[in-house]
């Protein structure tokens, strides 16, 4: 899976994100580090912030095309 595909899914889910990056950690297309800074996360517990990211990536997580996902999220305030 291409990092750009993941970025597209995240951009669709977090259109107001001020930072959005996807790094293919191994170059193999299945270990990703994603970072999202967005007003969507303001006031949300970390668990729920990550839940939102997991929801956005439910399809590739569900079919196994993402083998390992690292998530970093932050509100914008």
């Amino acid at each position, binding site marked *: 899976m291409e990092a750009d595909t993941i970025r597209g899914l995240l951009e669709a889910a977090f259109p107001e994100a001020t930072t959005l990056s996807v790094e293919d950690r191994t170059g193999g297309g299945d270990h990703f580090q994603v970072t999202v800074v967005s007003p969507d996360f303001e006031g949300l517990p*970390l*668990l729920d912030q*990550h*839940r939102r990211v*997991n929801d956005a990536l*439910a399809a590739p*997580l*569900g079919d196994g095309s993402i083998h*390992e*996902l*690292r*998530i*970093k999220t932050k509100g914008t305030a």
Partner: protein
Amino acid sequence: MKPLNEQISDVITHEPVAVFMKGTPQMVMCGNSHRALQALHAAGAPITTVDILPDPRIRQELAQISGWPTIPQVFVKGELIGGADITEELLESGELQQRLDESLGADRPQDVKVVALELA
């Protein structure tokens, strides 16, 4: 034999800190599982692990229960804390230790234990 989902719920409910991971503390099979264990160790947590690798149904049933799609999953007193990233972040901010102190006491045991689920 209890159904798998009940066995999983029992571990989540009854163990002070439950970690569903790939492998065991002696033989960790995934970097994120390793990171979660390290963070819990650093926070002085007792740790009960369940290896999800022996049967894909463990992971499916667990996801149904927790609503969390990835492994590892860390629970404290029955409550989902998150995966490796959250556990690490909470360690760094001091919240993990605080949460453990509040739910298990400051002089908690720090035993490591492995639970094997019964598979039909």
